[in-house]
């Protein structure tokens, strides 16, 4: 899982690249990584789903876990570039009602800073 920071005067946005498969076998590792970033104060996360091919309910739980952790202290979790299949999974599970989903990384980053 790769990360990249964007800094402004007020905020830091962490862009997180998730793996091609986020499934039960590796979801615990991804969960710990995201929670570790949040614990470091990086509570504006842009999660890049661009290279993701498969995600299961364990992977969805990783995303929801991050959102639940940051929501009470003004943080944000945005999702970027899901494939049509991943987007269908997000919509089926109603997670598009929780997360803002962007097609463009720059737009997601700008909104996360705002």
């Amino acid at each position, binding site marked *: 899982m790769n990360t990249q920071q964007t800094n402004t005067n007020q905020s830091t946005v962490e862009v997180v690249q998730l793996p091609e498969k986020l*499934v*039960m076998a590796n979801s615990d590792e991804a969960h710990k990584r995201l929670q570790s970033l949040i614990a470091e104060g990086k509570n504006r996360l842009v999660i890049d789903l661009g290279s993701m091919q*498969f995600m299961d*309910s364990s992977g969805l*739980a990783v995303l929801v876990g991050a959102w639940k952790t940051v929501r009470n202290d003004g943080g944000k979790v945005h999702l970027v570039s899901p494939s049509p*299949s991943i987007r269908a999974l997000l919509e*089926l*599970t109603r997670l598009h009602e*929780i997360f803002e989903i962007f097609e463009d990384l720059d737009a997601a980053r700008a909104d996360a800073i705002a």
Partner: protein
Amino acid sequence: MTPISKTYPVSFEAIEEALSAIQSLLQDLSSSEETTFKMVTCCREALNNIVQHSGQFEFTSKVRLFTRSQGTLMVIAFEHLPTVHQTPADSSMPYDSLSGRGLPIMDAWMDRFRLRQTAQRTQTLLMKYLISDEHH
């Protein structure tokens, strides 16, 4: 068609092996990308449940294909000795829960989904008509 049947150990590695075989079969049948994704995702949810809840050491995957007027019907059954821990039977869709999405996903994306438990075995049955890219 003779059922394709194989028994695997209950492990993450076996999940990947079983899914890879199913995905290859779907590709051979020219299943659309969307249908393949839904089928593989639902199989993964079923297998996740076995790893998490069965308390057993092996499971059997049985794949059958039927030609119907509506198209090719794929029927996949995952079977194992009776589940030790009861899986949640709630198929409602939680909004912000960390768990409980597997059954609703299978329920929504399969043409038929059934979880059956008897004294002899636990069976997860997934059925879906395959849509090829040509019809998409």
